[in-house]
């Protein structure tokens, strides 16, 4: 029996994958063909979605991008065997875009049935937890520290140090929380992982619980990801049945109960303390730090707050060893970065590579330039609070420190490409507008400054006292930067300032009208 894979991933389905799966099933029945249809996750090669794969003689053959209307023609040409057809891409391993990546975290994505625990285990799953169960908590924390893993949510804080703090905090109860409130525009790596390989997150959280002594965990998932919710719920049930979650995990004498909580459409809840407030059932207002969540976090107890990809990476660190993971990367940025190519890009999707590659390499070699075919003008890296980079900065290596040195940030790895039709004044205005919409309201510079920012930019656009207003805008950015508790207000100036600094001509239209 032939196995045919059609992704059930959000993007694949947004491009018609469900209709493709139905059509394949229907046509196979009509032709008395014995196939087994698997709804896998996506490989992250979204430019090829819906990407249909067929397993034959231990190889996977790829077809894409397939639409439901292509199925009859494909079958005529010999599908599901290899065949002469414009959509036949050859062996999956021959797709250069995928073959050139170093997939540590995303190696199973698309390969396995996301809901099959057996599939997960057959592809190296739970090797990390098995090792962790034979180690002391301190040994697990040391391995994570030695791996050089830093928080993938954007702040890049050393994971081992955070875990050590929670381990050392005396308490009758501790928590592990996964921040799956992936709100940055241009990012989808967490979603892809949760939909394609949910057990990896569950395993990572379980290892973390063993390391710090936590007995309960929460995944805080944004409500915009209903498919990920369904997959995670089923995966958690399977793990519970297999005694990989719940009481006395694998007869270790240790308990770990895992819950999912769904957010309610607030970007700020991706900020760790706001997320904790939301998990407690409150308004997502940012907390003062200290106390650090590692000391006083969820319900006042020591709490690990890590991004989905950070926790997932821990399974690799434990399974293959700290040195294996640390050997990838550059400078103080160790391991791999999951870059998400987005926006106006020809070959968009998830590219997992060691830290150190250049932005240009990613956008040009992997991305193939813009979708519109026009020249790239600006690239926003790191989400809505990240800088807009001009051409002169595209050779910056993807490395936390290198980005910081040019006044930018890697954040969660989102790369949004704009062609030369972009109006950078509009983008700066949007950054302020977004801050006004999503500010939790606690800090005045963020709550009110963002509204004033929109007004000032409108005046600049209207050529009203332009130079004085540009000066005022810079002054306002300084106030937001220095006077906000969290990154929302603190980093909103980053896209604004970079737009003004590197694209000044967009702030000087109608110059001749200036009096």
């Amino acid at each position, binding site marked *: 029996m032939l196995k045919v894979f059609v992704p059930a991933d959000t993007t694949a389905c*947004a491009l018609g994958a469900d209709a493709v799966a139905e059509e394949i099933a229907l046509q196979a029945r009509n032709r008395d063909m014995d196939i087994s249809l698997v709804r896998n996750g996506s490989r992250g090669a979204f430019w090829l979605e819906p990407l249909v794969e067929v397993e034959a003689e231990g190889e996977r053959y790829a077809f894409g991008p397939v639409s439901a209307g292509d199925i009859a023609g494909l079958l005529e040409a010999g599908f599901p065997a290899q065949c002469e057809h414009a959509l036949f891409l050859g062996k999956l391993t021959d797709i250069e875009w995928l073959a050139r990546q170093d997939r540590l975290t995303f190696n199973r994505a698309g390969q396995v049935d996301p809901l099959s625990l057996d599939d997960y285990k057959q592809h190296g799953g739970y090797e990390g937890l098995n090792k962790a169960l034979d180690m002391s908590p301190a040994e697990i924390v040391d391995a994570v520290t030695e791996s050089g893993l830093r928080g993938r949510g954007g702040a890049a804080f050393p994971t081992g140090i955070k875990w050590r703090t929670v381990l050392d905090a005396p308490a009758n109860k501790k928590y592990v929380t996964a921040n799956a409130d992936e709100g940055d525009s241009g990012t989808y790596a967490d979603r892809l992982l949760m939909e394609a390989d949910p057990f990896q997150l569950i395993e990572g959280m379980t290892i973390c619980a063993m390391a710090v002594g936590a007995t309960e965990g929460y995944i805080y998932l944004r409500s915009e990801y209903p498919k990920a919710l369904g997959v995670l719920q089923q995966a958690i049930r399977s793990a519970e049945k297999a005694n990989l979650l719940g009481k006395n995990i694998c007869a270790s004498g240790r308990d770990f109960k895992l819950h999912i909580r769904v957010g309610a*459409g607030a970007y700020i809840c991706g900020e760790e303390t706001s997320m904790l407030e939301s998990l407690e059932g409150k*308004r997502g207002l940012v907390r003062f730090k200290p106390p650090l969540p590692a000391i006083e976090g969820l319900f006042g107890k020591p709490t690990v707050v890590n991004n989905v990809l950070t926790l997932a990476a821990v399974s690799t660190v434990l399974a293959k060893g700290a040195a294996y993971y640390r050997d990838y990367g550059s400078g103080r940025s160790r391991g791999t970065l999951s870059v998400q190519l987005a926006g106006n890009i020809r070959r968009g999707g998830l590219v997992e590579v060691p830290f150190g590659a250049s932005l240009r390499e990613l956008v040009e070699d992997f991305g193939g330039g813009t979708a519109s075919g026009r020249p790239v003008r600006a690239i926003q890296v790191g989400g809505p609070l990240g800088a807009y980079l001009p051409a002169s900065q595209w050779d910056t290596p993807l490395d936390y420190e290198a980005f910081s040195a040019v006044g930018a940030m890697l954040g969660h790895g989102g790369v949004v490409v704009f062609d030369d039709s972009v109006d950078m004044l509009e983008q700066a205005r949007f950054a302020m507008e977004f801050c006004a919409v999503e500010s939790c309201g606690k800090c005045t510079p963020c709550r009110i400054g963002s509204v004033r920012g929109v007004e000032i930019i409108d005046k600049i656009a209207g050529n009203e006292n332009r130079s004085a207003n540009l000066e005022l805008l810079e002054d306002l950015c300084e106030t937001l930067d220095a006077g906000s508790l969290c990154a929302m207000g603190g980093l909103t100036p980053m896209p604004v300032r970079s737009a003004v600094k590197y694209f000044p001509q967009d702030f000087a239209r109608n110059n001749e009208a200036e009096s």
Partner: protein
Amino acid sequence: MSSSNEATVAVVAKVIQKFSDVAGGLLPLLHEIQAKIGFIPKDCVPQIARGMGLSRAEVHGVISFYHDFHDQPRGEKTIHLCRAEACQAMGSRNLERHVKRRLGIDYGDTTPDGRFSLEPVYCLGNCACSPSIRIDDDVHARVDAARFDELLDGI
């Protein structure tokens, strides 16, 4: 508004029973009430507050903080249009103008026939194939004006 009829009270009471002992259970409770009733009637706030051991202000504060929660009835279907940067880079500002004109409403509004509500959303995680919209739970990729009309006509 007198939506707090007996049926509503009974629905809310049942949901409260489910979540009153759940740590930090207010968000899941509100999600479930909204899923069952379509919105969170203002008249239910005192009942929720009593049941969860909170003040009415706390409950109202949470409902009003989160974009997902609504205290007014919604359209049969909710259309979420992504306003974030990746979609902007692919022409979502034009799409936004078209959608508002076609539906004849602005963000936060419901069409007079009660069929559609329009909401902004800041990222649907579909950023490699922008612009994106979500109609109820279904995300659609590479949506331009023509594709939007096609989707709307198909409903």
